[in-house]
């Protein structure tokens, strides 16, 4: 039957309901600040929102958004290719290109549309794509639509990438290589110096998704490639406005003038309405702020290190290095759900991640840190995890 394939998910939902826990699509009833809200009737610290710089609640961004709504209306009601390119959209494209020091940019309605749209369009039948095995779902969706040959290389493994480029022979120089800056689930950073070196040896085009690293890494916040000093090796940067910039939308920037022709070939750009003027306005203001206020990045990393060190000192299995994403990996699904529920009861909202969203068969309690978190809030999060240990819900082990 048509619906048979959904039965496993329906059973899982029933199990969650029976346990009175709703980790997926938990409703936020009120936002109190960038780091606090009322979720499912409970006041909680928001530690799973990707609001890395806390700009979703910045008064300057809110004001810009309000002014734009008053002046331009609530929506464009059309595609960028039809009536949906307002002056603000074009201005933001100029500003994001300038931010990256390149000449060409496309602004999309979501980050998903940006990566999916670019990956489905850049390569086509007869071309070959090499993508990191732990790539985001939007990248997998895009490459699947492309019609190109899709080859995975082991996650953040430049040697495996080199091996696969070598196997391609003459096709290697035209291959599209896809990687990310910070990987969203475990918070690890791609070895971009080594990946860039492989690309220099074999050729190809490098597409880098900086969704979780833009605003968080690099001297001026451009992301992981800037931090690694390899921006010249990146052909296309993609990213989102929904994390460090606190709004919604996505972008792709490039030094290649061909991006202007590519723009007209991307279904995810053409056949969807453009971002609301208010969203564009707050994004432009947030971009100005992250350029002018590098101290936000400093504070983000101070908080990231505080949370990472705190969880690690508890003996929890966190990743190898500190990152704005700090994930605790667990093997047992039921126990992980119990932990998520207990964290909520302790006043801390984190993300519960289950396979295949997690990069292995493990389950994750995924925390994302914000520059807007206070030290006291970070300590409350750490204390909540200590409570899980005290309750016997999680057993300390050696960190990875």
């Amino acid at each position, binding site marked *: 039957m048509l619906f048979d394939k959904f039965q496993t998910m329906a059973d899982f939902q029933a199990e969650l309901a029976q346990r009175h826990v709703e980790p997926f699509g938990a409703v936020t009833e009120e936002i109190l600040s960038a780091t606090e809200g009322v979720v499912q009737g409970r006041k909680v610290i928001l530690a799973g929102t990707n609001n890395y710089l806390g700009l979703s609640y910045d008064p300057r961004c809110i004001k810009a958004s309000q002014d734009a709504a008053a002046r331009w209306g609530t929506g464009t009601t059309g595609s960028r290719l039809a009536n949906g390119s307002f002056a603000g959209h074009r201005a933001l494209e100029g500003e994001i290109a300038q931010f990256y020091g390149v000449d060409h940019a496309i602004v999309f309605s979501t980050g998903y549309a940006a990566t999916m749209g670019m990956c489905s369009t850049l390569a086509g039948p007869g071309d070959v794509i090499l993508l990191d095995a732990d790539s985001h779902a939007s990248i997998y969706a895009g490459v699947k639509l492309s019609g190109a*040959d*899709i080859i*995975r290389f082991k996650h953040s493994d430049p040697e495996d990438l080199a091996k696969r480029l070598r196997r391609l022979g003459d096709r290697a120089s035209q291959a599209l290589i896809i990687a990310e800056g910070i990987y969203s689930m475990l918070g690890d950073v791609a070895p971009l110096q080594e990946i860039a070196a492989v690309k220099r040896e074999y050729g190809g085009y490098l597409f880098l998704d900086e969704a979780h690293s833009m605003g968080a890494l690099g001297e001026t916040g451009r992301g992981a490639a800037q931090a690694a000093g390899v921006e010249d090796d990146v052909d296309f940067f993609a990213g989102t406005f929904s994390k460090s910039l606190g709004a919604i939308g996505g972008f792709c920037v490039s030094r290649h003038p061909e991006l202007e022709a590519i723009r007209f070939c991307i279904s995810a750009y053409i056949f969807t309405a453009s971002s609301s003027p208010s969203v564009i306005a707050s994004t432009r203001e947030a971009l100005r702020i992250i350029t002018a206020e590098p101290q936000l990045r400093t504070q983000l990393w101070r908080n990231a290190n505080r949370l990472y060190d705190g969880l690690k000192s508890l003996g929890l299995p966190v990743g190898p290095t500190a990152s704005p994403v700090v994930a605790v990996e667990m093997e047992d699904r039921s126990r992980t759900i119990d932990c998520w529920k207990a964290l909520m009861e302790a006043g801390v909202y984190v993300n519960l991640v289950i396979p295949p969203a997690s990069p292995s068969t493990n389950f994750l309690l995924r925390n994302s840190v914000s520059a807007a978190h206070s030290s006291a809030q970070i300590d409350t999060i750490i204390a909540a995890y200590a409570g899980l240990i005290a309750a016997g819900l999680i057993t300390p082990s050696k960190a990875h």
Partner: protein
Amino acid sequence: MTDYQEYLNFLYTALESQNKKQLVLSENTALVADIGLSSLEVMEFIEKIEDHFDISIPLNILPDVNTIGDLARKVRELNL
């Protein structure tokens, strides 16, 4: 060029450790439906084949691969 039967023989041997049901393998044995390989085990198995023949097997051909015979034919094509 190695012929089809040699590819089949290699796949039978390579699958030994994952053939937990001790099935008698043939070209019509389905990798997932019969042997019960998980998606992770399929990827590990594919990697074993790739390294042996020094090839890359594109993900986009996998939806057409159900049986050991399907896989042997695809690997033979890629290894020409």
